[in-house]
């Protein structure tokens, strides 16, 4: 079963806000000078910010934010965030792979930016909501 695709806009302001809230102030997430200096095309989103957006999608599909039992991803491609009002967009979709004997639902998740997958092995295990 395919779950409805969720789309999230990501701007530089979102990255600055996430840096402050998470405590991850690595300058590759806010300074083009630093990002290009280490060979990136420009400022990139925190991997954990992308994962947090996926977490929102999972919580939405589960029907409850506290239903997630296991959640893992592999970061395969950076999410480049241009310094524009539009920023970029991340699309998150998932399919239900199975319902385990314990009644947990396993999701296989796909996250893309500009048509390219930015995560692999993205999976979540959620329990039925009350």
């Amino acid at each position, binding site marked *: 079963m395919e779950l409805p695709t969720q789309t999230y806009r990501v701007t530089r302001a979102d990255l600055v806000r996430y840096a402050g*809230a*998470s405590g991850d102030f690595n300058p590759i997430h806010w300074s083009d000078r630093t990002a290009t200096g280490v*060979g990136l095309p420009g400022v990139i989103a925190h991997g954990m910010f992308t994962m*947090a957006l996926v977490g929102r999608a999972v*919580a939405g599909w589960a029907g409850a*934010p506290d239903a997630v039992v296991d959640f*893992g991803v592999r970061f395969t491609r950076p999410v480049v965030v241009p310094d524009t009002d539009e920023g970029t967009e991340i699309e998150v979709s998932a399919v239900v792979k199975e319902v385990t004997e314990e009644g947990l639902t396993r999701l296989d998740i796909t996250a893309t930016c500009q048509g390219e997958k930015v995560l692999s092995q993205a999976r979540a295990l959620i329990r039925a909501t*009350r």
Partner: protein
Amino acid sequence: MSLDPSFVGRTYPPTAPYQVGREKIREFAAAVGATDPVHHDPEAARSLGHSDVVAPPTFPVVVTMAASRQIVEDPALGVDYSRVVHGDQRFAYTRPVVAGDELVCVSTIEEVTSRGGHGFLTTRTDVSTVDGEPVVAVWSKIVVRGEA
């Protein structure tokens, strides 16, 4: 860069307790756009059986940061932080983190490998309350990029 495989199995001392604040959860939830009342309104959280507002699923990274630093900044291991990129991340929850939790992290190095000139380091951080109740296990794999 090659990392010393003899570090596999090494466990670091518990971190100082992290006091999970209600406003920190609200701030983090707002920063990731998590608007569900369970993250913001203690009454909404209590109606779902939690003692206070519930942290979004990736919030434990805020708590495990000190533990990660312990390892990445271990001079004996010798990770060059400017060459680190995030590889994998996983959370296995016993229960969600809620405001009021006092959490302690114990980290273990699970895997050290080298491939194609890059080093790979997998750590497991067990997050539990100061009373020893397990809350979440956090796995993180970092890649230490080799010199180009």
